[in-house]
C-alpha cells in the first residue's frame, strides 16, 4: 500500500512489471460545469428493510475510468448494479433518489430497461460465458438486439469486438470452439468483447479481475485503459493498487455512504477525509 501511495505521489501510476510501463498520463480534471455522463443524486437503496446505500451523490464524467473502492459490504457493487438496473431482478429492492444518464432519469417509468442495459454494458466478477461457441457468445447481444443485417456484418462486428477486447489473435482459429474451453482470463476478455459488441456507451465492471492471476489481471487493466477512449467506465475493485493504476477518479464507499470522490491521485495521496486515508493506507478494510 505504501509503495502504491508513493507511485501515486510521483503522479505516474504504473502497471506492474517494469517491462511494460503503462503510458504516462495525467488525469484529466473533470470540469465540474461540464455535463456528466452519469449524475447520481441522493440515491438510497434498500434490500427489504435494510438500507444499503445512503444518500449517494456522484457525477461520473465521460471517457474516464471511475473506480469504486471500499470494504466488503459497503454498497459499491449495489451502486454499480443500480446504474443498469440490474438490481431490478432481485425481489424486495427499492430505490430512492435519481440516476440520470445523459440527463435522462433511468428509473423513470418510460424507460425501457432492456434498451438501458444495452447502452450500459456490464462485466461481472466471475466470468460468465454462455455455454455456446466463442463466436456465438459475442454474437448473442447482436442477435437479440437485431443489430446486424447480414451474416457478413455479424462476422465483422464479432471480429471487431474480439479485437477491441484484445482476444482476437488468440481465438481467430477456433471461433467455433466452446467458450468454456478458454482460460479464465480469456473468458473474462470474451465477456468484455460480448459487452462491447452491442456498442454500449458505459461499461460497468464488477471486480473484473478478482478471480484472475496477475498476468491476466494486467491484460484486463491495459484493456480498461485503452477502452476509456471510447467508453465511460465504472469499475468496482477490492484491489487498491488496481484502482490507482487504472482509474482517473476514485470514489470511496463506507457503510453505504459515499465518503469521498476525487481524482485518483488525490484520493491516494491527500484525501480530504481521515476515513479515506485510513482505508487507502491499509489501516482497516
Amino acid at each position, binding site marked *: 500500500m505504501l509503495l502504491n501511495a508513493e507511485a501515486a505521489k510521483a503522479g505516474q501510476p504504473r502497471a506492474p512489471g517494469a517491462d511494460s510501463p503503462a503510458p504516462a498520463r495525467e488525469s484529466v480534471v473533470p470540469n465540474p460545469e461540464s455535463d456528466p455522463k452519469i449524475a447520481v443524486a441522493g440515491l438510497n437503496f434498500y434490500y427489504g428493510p435494510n438500507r444499503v446505500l445512503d444518500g449517494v451523490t456522484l457525477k461520473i464524467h465521460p471517457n474516464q475510468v471511475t473506480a469504486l473502492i471500499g470494504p466488503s459490504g459497503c454498497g459499491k457493487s449495489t451502486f454499480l448494479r443500480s446504474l*443498469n438496473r*440490474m438490481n431490478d*431482478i432481485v*425481489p424486495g429492492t427499492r430505490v430512492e433518489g435519481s440516476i440520470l444518464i445523459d440527463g435522462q432519469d433511468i428509473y423513470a417509468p418510460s424507460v425501457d430497461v*432492456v*434498451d438501458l*442495459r*444495452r447502452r450500459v*454494458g*456490464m462485466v*461481472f466478477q*466471475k466470468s*460468465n*460465458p*454462455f*455455454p*455456446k461457441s466463442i463466436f456465438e457468445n459475442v454474437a*448473442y*447481444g447482436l442477435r*437479440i*438486439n437485431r443489430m446486424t443485417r447480414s451474416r457478413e456484418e455479424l462476422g465483422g462486428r464479432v471480429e471487431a469486438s474480439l479485437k477491441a477486447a484484445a482476444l482476437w489473435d488468440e481465438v481467430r482459429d477456433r471461433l467455433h*470452439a*466452446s467458450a*468454456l*474451453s478458454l482460460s479464465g482470463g480469456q473468458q473474462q476478455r470474451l*465477456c468484455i468483447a*460480448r*459487452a462491447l459488441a*452491442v456498442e454500449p456507451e458505459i461499461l460497468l465492471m464488477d471486480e473484473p479481475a478478482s478471480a484472475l492471476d496477475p498476468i491476466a489481471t494486467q491484460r484486463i487493466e491495459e484493456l480498461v485503459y485503452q477502452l476509456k477512449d471510447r467508453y465511460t467506465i465504472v469499475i468496482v475493485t477490492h484491489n487498491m493498487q488496481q484502482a490507482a493504476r487504472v482509474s482517473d477518479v476514485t470514489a470511496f464507499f463506507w457503510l453505504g455512504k459515499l465518503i469521498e470522490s476525487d481524482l485518483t491521485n488525490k484520493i491516494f495521496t491527500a484525501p480530504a477525509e481521515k476515513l479515506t486515508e485510513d482505508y487507502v493506507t491499509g489501516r482497516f478494510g
Partner: protein
Amino acid sequence: MSRTSRRKLLSALFVGFCALSVLLALVPLALILFFVVSQGIQSLNVAFFTHMPAPVGEAGGGMANAIVGTLILTALGSIFAVPIGILSGVYTSEYGGTRLASAIRFAADTLNGVPSIVIGVFVYGIAVLPFKQFSAMAGGLALGIMMIPIIARTTEELLLLVPGTMREGALALGATRARAVFSVVLPAALPGIITGVVLALARIAGETAPLLFTAFNNRFFTTKLNQPIASLTVQVYTYANSPYADWHRQAWAGALVLVSIVFLCSIFARLATRRLEAMRG
C-alpha cells in the same frame, strides 16, 4: 477395549450395515431381471415382434400390435406432457418467489402422488365417456398427465442449478427475461432435462392402470388414435391372468420387451447427456 478401537469397531459395523442394506435393495432388482430374462427369452422370437396375437387355443403368434401400441401411447403422452412440463418448470424456477409458483409446485407434487388408477378413472370421465369410445388419445392423455409433474419438477431443479450469473449476463446485454431463459438458461440445462424426459418416458411406458379404462386394449393392429389400442402392459396383464400356458409364456416375453425398452431408454438418456455435455466442452 480402548476408546479408539471401540470407535473403529463401531465405524466398521456401521459401514457393514450400509453395505448390507445396499445388497438387500439390489436383490429384488436382480431377481426381477433374472426371472424376466430367463422366462421371457424362451418365447421371444421374431414372430413375437411381427405377428399378431393368435386366437385362443392356437399356439404361437406375437404382440406386434401391443409393441406398436405402447410406442404410440408413450409418444402421445410426451406430446402432451413435454411442452407443458418444461414450461411449468421454467415458470416455477424463474418466477419462483411468486405465490402462483409455490401453488404450481405443490400441485405438481400432489399430482405426482395421485395413484395412477385414479388418473385413469379421471381421464375415463373426461375423454372416454363424452365420446363413448375408448381411444389411444385418451390413453396418451392419461400417460401425459402422469408425466407432467415429473418433467416439471426435473426441469425446475435443473434450471435452478444454472448459475444466476448466466441469467444476469444475458440480461446485461439487453435480453428480455424470456429471451434470457430460452436462449441461455434452458440450453445450459438441456442435457439434464432430456435425461429427465427420457426417464419419465421409461416410467410411464410401464404403466398399466391408467390405460385400463382409457386406451383399453385391442386384439387387432391399429394406429388410429380414436380407436382402442393395445399396449404391452395391458397385454401382459391380460395374458398373465389367462388360464393358458402359451399365453403365460407370451406374457413373460412381453415383460422382457418392456424391461428392455425401459433399459434402452436409460442408456439412451445417459448417452445423450454425455454427448451434449461433450459438445459444450
